[in-house]
């Protein structure tokens, strides 16, 4: 009886949402599964999110996503955003909460393959059948690990540099080993990008270690990818390698002389994923938010707020960027979680690379 009552209530709410959403742009395109999800999400009412303030424009971006999502689905869900630390630390906190049998402090994990690969074995992410909600939009290649993670946007890894102060315009990673860069550049304390190069089917360990050792003699220090302002100020003239090129584009808009170099010899195309923890407090709202991010409107907002979208979706601006780079002869290595899991040498060699980069020569 309770189940019937609950289903009737869901149907009534779904009907109400459909009526309420008549004026909305996309509500009429929702299939039954999506309507049911929207109803459940609306009941939850909130999504707790946390990532860097520079990602999806942080709090201001969350407000824009909230308005657009509620308009699209006819819901009234609040995006409760908290500016957070780096992705790895958030992932570690979620794993710790899951291990302790506690509710997750946020409902969606955002990460790329370096952050997600180490935690896959903890099995705390919910497998979701994403395609059933938006079969015309979500394709099989967008999900990995049986739907535990779903691609949201694309990132292109290279090097970010100060175009006004740089001694030359770099085109390859080898350029940064030239004397004019010595003592003026930075790398990340987590060997961003180099871990991928160490894969057997990219550069391999020996070549990568040799390059990183040479680079370590060149760099003045280390910084996180999100600290691109330090390149804008001239504290460092370049970040080799960066995580993605979004920082350069974002700072360019503010008038900072930042540019990204896509190395012909080491270009990487990676993805940022969303995942819903099994212990999420608002799992349905989290899934609805994820699906909205993949919608046409959501992708447009992603580019507006973070200068990136999923490059293979129709109308993608990253797609055009990728095509432009390819015309210039850039060959991207596609970095996915499933690919990284097939290359255990990446994680095995990563600690060595980190140690080389973080130790002053």
């Amino acid at each position, binding site marked *: 009886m309770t189940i019937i009552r609950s289903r009737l209530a869901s149907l009534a709410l779904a009907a109400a949402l459909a009526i309420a959403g008549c004026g909305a742009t996309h509500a009429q395109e929702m299939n039954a599964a999506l309507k049911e999800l929207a109803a459940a999400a609306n009941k939850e009412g909130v999504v*707790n999110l*946390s*990532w*860097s*303030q*520079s*990602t999806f424009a*942080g*709090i*201001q971006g969350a407000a824009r996503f909230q308005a657009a999502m509620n308009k699209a689905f006819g819901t009234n869900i609040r995006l*409760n955003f*908290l*500016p*957070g*630390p*780096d992705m*790895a*630390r958030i992932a*570690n906190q979620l*794993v*710790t*909460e899951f*291990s*302790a*049998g*506690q509710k997750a*402090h946020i409902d969606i994990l955002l990460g790329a393959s*370096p*952050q997600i690969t*180490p*935690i896959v074995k*903890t099995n705390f992410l919910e497998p979701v059948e994403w395609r059933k909600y938006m079969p015309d939009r979500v394709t099989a290649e967008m999900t990995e690990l049986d739907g535990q993670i779903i691609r949201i946007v694309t990132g292109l890894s290279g090097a970010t540099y100060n175009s006004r102060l740089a001694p030359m315009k770099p085109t390859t990673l080898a350029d940064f080993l030239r004397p004019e860069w010595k003592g003026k550049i*930075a790398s990340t*304390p*987590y*060997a961003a990008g180099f871990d991928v190069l160490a894969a057997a089917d990219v550069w391999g360990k020996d070549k990568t270690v040799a390059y990183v050792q040479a680079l370590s003699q060149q760099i*003045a*220090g*280390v*910084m*996180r990818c*999100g600290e691109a*302002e*330090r390149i*804008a*100020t*001239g*504290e460092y003239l370049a970040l080799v390698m960066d995580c993605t090129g979004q920082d350069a584009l974002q*700072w360019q808009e*503010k*008038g*900072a002389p930042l540019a990204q170099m896509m190395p012909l010899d080491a270009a990487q195309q990676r993805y940022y994923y969303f995942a819903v923890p099994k212990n999420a407090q608002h799992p349905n709202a989290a899934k609805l938010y994820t699906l909205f991010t993949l919608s046409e409107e959501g992708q447009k907002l992603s580019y507006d707020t973070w200068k990136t979208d999923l490059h293979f979706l129709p109308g993608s601006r990253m797609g055009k960027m990728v095509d432009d780079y390819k015309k210039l002869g850039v060959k991207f290595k596609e970095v996915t979680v499933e690919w990284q899991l097939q290359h255990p040498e990446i*994680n095995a060699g*990563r*600690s060595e690379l*980190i*140690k080389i980069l*973080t*130790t*002053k020569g």
Partner: protein
Amino acid sequence: MSATAESLSLRRATSDFLPAAMLLIVLAASVVVLCHLAIVLWLAWTSGSPGDPDLAYTAANFAEVFSDARSYSVLIDTFAFAFVSLAVALGFGIPIAWIAERTDFPAKTALFTLMAIGLLIPGFAAAMGWLFLLHPRIGLINQLLAGLPGVPFNIASILGMGWVQGLNLAPLAFIMTAAVFRSMDPSLEEAAEVHGAGAWTVLRRVTVRLAWPGIMAASIYIFMTAFAAFDVPAIIGWGNRIFTFTTYLYLLLNPQDVLPRYGLAAALSTVALAIAALMAWWYGAMQQRSRQFAVVTGRAYRPKIIKLGRRAAGAWLLIATYLILSKVLPILLLIWSSVLPFFQLPSAQALATASFTHYATLPWELVLTSLWNTSILAALTPTVTLAVSLAFSWVVLRSKLPGRAAFDFIAFLPHAVPSIVFGVGALLLTLFVLQRALPLYGTIWILLLVFTIARISYGTRMTNSGLIQIHAELEESAHMSGATTWDALRRITAPLMAPTLLYAWLWICLLTFRELTLAVILSTADNITFPVVVWSLWLGGGLGQASALAMVMLLMMTPLIAAYWFFARRQGLVAT
């Protein structure tokens, strides 16, 4: 014994509940402190994470720590950094405290207020400021001196980091030693003068020696604070691959390639625990000696005020130099960076891009939530901490309990353990041990508990210093007259300690207001604090918005501090 004395003694015996209550508080607090440390020690012998079914016991963490040459180089750098910080902090803090308390310096209230405000300026903001002043490539001063051979100054060094940290810690040295100078009996100084000693001789051979226990307490405390400092080494050192103990621990606790290496970090932390034990032992030994320095007795006293005369110019110069270096420059840089789209050195071109966009786009709802949480913590933490600290000091210094010195040792331990490790211990304790019985995770009460424990060492250093200065004969006289311990505490000890307690309260309040490391580890959406919002914005959104919020934070606190000092001055509790 007379009938009256017997009656008074009986009254004391039946109604004197306070000693037992204080012992109970001390025992409970000690258990909580030891539980946090036990978690860290336990983790040092494990592999994997708590809750992991594959968790195993191993000595591999210690083997890795002690076989890695980097552990030793990090420790050497940390000691060097802490010593430079101590020298700078004492170099500014003690003379300014002496000027404020023992001379006729005319602007004392302003001086106290400015020194207190100094504690509010986030360490990372000051570090960023100094980076832009003395960075070898982009430092303003270095660019002005560009024509000279070589780089004159390099902030990206142990010396540079120690300089910035020392400037940040000088208010601490000031507050801790000001209380000592204020409580000083002038009779010995007067006696020295009567016997022909000059002002310098009196200062060197009497004043400093009388203040020595307080100065030593401050030194040990500041040294350990610098040893456990995070923000300055993170901003200046990390970027330049100079790791101190805490930044190296942070590296281990937040790996990008594997799950957190709690065991390895905990094993490294045992080194800090050993150092803490040594420092605590040293402090205890010195405290034993310090009993002979009790300078407030049953006799009336009033610290002698020295007329500065022409020396006032020197005092002004010292204070102005300190304030410009430690306050004015960082605040100016905060203001400058808060109005720029991205940080640039001052120029007409940069000025043309200035606007109030960062202020307009601040996340006000989050700011107000965090401000509310922080205000609650800033009011409760010092109050609870001082109540607990007073209980510790009373048990250690006034009771006859066997082995009571151990409590002082326990009270000092939280300070010695870097906040990062302590925070992780608290996180794991609340998540894995306490959660079902006491669901504190994600509430401000976990922050109150951890902040209080973390400040017990601060609090007990202050209450110990205050209680040492008050001879036990005053309380013994009260007891002889039939007063209970509560009566003696309320009517004699507490009023005499009021200046010390007020200093300590304010000090802990301000430190709580800017506490970052513990809050970062234990924060969620429900218990986020003001500094965590500033820090998060800085981490992800650039210096501009974080600087704007830091300025808002300073503006919010300044009238409160001014009002506090105005009130305290009217009560006669602040030097005038």
